[in-house]
């Protein structure tokens, strides 16, 4: 990745981190279902930009851990491990770049994140003896629904405006005409 790309991804990550910690709590309550970090990480892996995906996950996790009002359960670790799961899934499970592939990846991502959050929850309760606030399963289901809408929008926008997901069929004249 070029230096300019690192700067752009870092700025995006800080912005997303501030959105999750500072903006989300101040907006009307239904905004809590719109959490774009994982969708953008999935998009980066679909674009074969794993460094950007890991960088975005790590920096937005750090911002959350530093200024969030509620205990985050070590967001940095959770998001980095989720990015790793997406990396594995993108390379070995969903090998094509399609809307359906993107949708399955975001489902895998969100479920993995929820699993890591559950591990953190029990770690907090039994090892640290502190409270970690979790949203209920219904809220997570709605967040997943919004993730699917978001990743579809991101994928289609990227396809239309950048042509990065186009499959190119070379036009080659054969000896028969």
């Amino acid at each position, binding site marked *: 990745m070029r230096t300019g790309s690192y700067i752009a991804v870092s700025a995006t990550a800080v912005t997303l981190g*501030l959105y999750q910690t*500072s903006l*989300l*709590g*101040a907006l009307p309550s239904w905004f809590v279902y719109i959490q774009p970090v994982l969708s953008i990480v999935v998009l980066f892996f679909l674009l074969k930009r794993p460094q950007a995906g890991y960088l975005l996950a790590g920096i937005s996790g750090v911002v959350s851990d530093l200024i969030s009002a509620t205990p985050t359960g070590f967001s*940095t670790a959770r998001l980095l491990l989720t990015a790793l799961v997406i990396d594995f899934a993108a390379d070995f499970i969903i090998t094509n770049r399609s809307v359906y592939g993107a949708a399955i990846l975001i489902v895998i991502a969100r479920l993995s994140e929820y699993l890591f959050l559950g591990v953190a929850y029990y770690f907090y309760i039994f090892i640290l003896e502190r409270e970690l606030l979790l*949203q209920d399963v219904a809220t997570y289901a709605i967040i997943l629904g919004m993730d699917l809408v978001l990743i579809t929008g991101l994928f289609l926008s990227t396809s239309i405006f950048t042509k990065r997901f186009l499959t190119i069929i070379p036009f080659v004249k054969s000896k028969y005409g």
Partner: protein
Amino acid sequence: MQRQWKTLIIIIAIIISIVFLHVTRVLVPFEEAFRGVLAPLGALVSKVGITVHDQAGNVGVDAQCKDRIDELERRIEHLSVDYVQLNALKEENAVLRKTLGFEEQQGYELVIANIISRSVVPNRGFFTIDRGSKDGVELGMAVIFGEGIYVGKVTRIYERTSLVTLTTDPASRVAISKPGEHTLIGLVEGDGNRVAKATLIPQDEVISQNDVLVTSGTEEKIPPDLIVGIVNQVIDQTTDPFKEAVLEPVVQTDYLSIVAVLMPKVLNPEN
């Protein structure tokens, strides 16, 4: 596959390093430096969110009605403060205060703070402010809005930021009394969903709808006569030794962007 396994090892190494450096407090100066940079950005972003929230709440509401509602809410705030101050003055004039000289020296001063982030978990009430131990803030200090409306107390401190637990959070507890009386009559516990409940009120204590309840002053670092809420409903079962009251906060904390931490003057590092 090899790349992903290498990445896994790197990530695990990063996580273990962060945990180790955090626990041994090596990372603390860097964490505080980053918080110092992020806090003003968080305050700005939070204000943008409140503006959007306010505008979204106005959609479909007649402009005149909205103005009237805002005006009435401001009047309730001012009238509540005036009422509490009047009762406090009456009490002060009626009783000989042996500690008057000590109280005049004591006093409290305000440390103004911006809200930089809020809880997004439903039925929980927290926010983070951009003041911390460097500004003299300590655990248990009262956080107020305006002229004396109690919003919550400081429950976690960092060098440049602090976490405030609101009155409406289920983990919040604050001792209350009637205005000017300074005798403990009960405890306010958060009920989630922006509502609080006053509990452990003795049966012989007279409480009715629209009564204002205030801090009792029996807790360290929380002065008396800060308005906690207005009684919305009294729950009284004659078979119970105590009664309860549902309290409505005087201000909606969703729309706050600036609050103040009450710091006892004797605790100010400059004194």
